[in-house]
């Protein structure tokens, strides 16, 4: 599945949930399914600023693709980052940079999460882009 297809699939999936609480149920399940993030990688340099909850984002490059791993101490945030990790992890830096990241707005998370949270989300996306941009320059 291309990145655009994957983004569209998520938008479609979310459109099924009319109630906010159903969206949250879904995000909570996603959050619970996010793979284990090692405690040793919960370092300050991987901590994303702007969240009321704490978010850690780690990455590595394998075969020219960026592999993201992330964690949060709050489960809804963890669901959102699971969504983002699912979308952008395992893709080339070029693919990641081709996205306009509007998926977050399209599923209604940016407007509807609290401002502090939205800022955290913005910081998280900025970080993903930053990593991809370094990747294209072979700096990672």
């Amino acid at each position, binding site marked *: 599945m291309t990145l655009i297809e994957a983004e569209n699939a998520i938008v479609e999936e979310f459109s099924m949930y009319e109630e*906010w*609480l159903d969206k*949250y*149920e879904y995000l*909570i399940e996603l959050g619970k399914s996010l793979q284990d993030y090692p405690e040793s990688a919960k370092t300050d340099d991987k901590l994303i600023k702007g969240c*009321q*909850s*704490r978010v850690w984002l780690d990455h590595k490059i394998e075969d020219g693709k960026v592999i993201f791993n992330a964690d949060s*101490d*709050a*489960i*809804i*945030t963890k669901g959102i980052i699971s969504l983002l990790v699912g979308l952008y992890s395992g893709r080339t830096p070029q693919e990641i940079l081709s996205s306009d990241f509007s998926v977050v707005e399209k599923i209604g998370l940016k407007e509807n*999460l*609290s401002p502090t*949270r939205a800022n955290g989300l913005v910081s998280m996306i900025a970080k993903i882009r930053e990593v991809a941009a370094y990747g294209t320059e072979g700096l990672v």
Partner: protein
Amino acid sequence: MNVQEIRSLFPALSRKVYGKDLVYFDNAATSQRPQSVIDEWNRISSESNANIHRAVHRLADEATQAYEQARDAVKDFLNASAREEIVFTSGTTAAVNLVAFCFGEAYVREGDEVIVTEAEHHSNIVPWQMMCRRKGAVLKVLPVDDSGHLMVEELGGLLTDRTRIVAVTHISNVLGIINPVKDIIAECHSRGVPVLVDGAQGAVHCRVDVQDMDCDFYVFSGHKLYAATGTGVLYGKKKWLEDMPPYMGGGEMVGTVSFAETTYAPLPMKFEAGTQNFASAATLKPALECINLLNNNELIKYNDTVRDFLLDRLTSDGRIRLYGVPRGTNEEKIPLFSFSVDGVHHEDLALILDKMGIAVRSGQMCAEPLMDRFGVTGMLRVSLAPYNTMEEAEYFVECLNRAIDMLV
């Protein structure tokens, strides 16, 4: 007036969020405003907008009168002995900063000591810390116990002949326990030490009589007690306010100005440099009139039942850890409850409750030292006003249980 009649005075309370009736439980952060406050702000803005204290024209006179009448209302509200003891500020934070700076300039020297408590809001810690750093003074801290009560018995050991001032909150914005400020003040005074009381929550929930309390300074915000935002009050005993140097220099705080020397205006204008937020300050008068309406026995009794209900529910659920539990009667607790739920992040709870129409606060509540004291990264806080109902409290408990079930 019963609770429904009171509610009808506050237009925001009838709105809906996400299609659900708003349940506003974040009153400790800011309270909603009655129509009378909104009307007063509008009246000044649309009819009497002119800079106060300066001009002789009609509009200036009307604006000045509204502003000064608000000062009289505050004086009566606090039972201050003179209107000169009431200084308007932009809020509690500004008032503490003013005292910390000016008091520090006048009386604090290297090696002196200042005492705050572990239960303070950042606004009653940081200004003192800044002053201590500037002066080379030492900041000492009176701890709280596991139930969230100040360990007043340790105060005597902290006070020394180098203690210059003690700053203590009337009611912590996290713990909601009414502190025995009168006893604290008496003990400090017996050692010759003045006391500043942070009344940001206390002025809203207690009948304050500054003469009876005998505090040296009492500070509070207007926006937490139904007035417009950007309003605050510093009460200070005349002898201190007269003796302390001014805070900011500029318009209307002066007597005469020349390049050689400037003399300062008499109290309270000495501390009110620059154009004041007069339209908002004037709303303190209708806000305090509203407080008088809320102080009726029928409503107080009702509010107490709501508080007791929530206190019971939040202390009887094994998953919930409440911070600030009364030791004696429930009367020492205001309807403000900060808690954590085992295995659940406060922010998740706040987000889900929001979607259920309930506005609560989550996070550190500007009291990081207190979060550290209880070993948490944050808490969830529900804080009620007299206009909140038993139905809202019951709905909250039901939603909280639902949210916890979703998350664990």
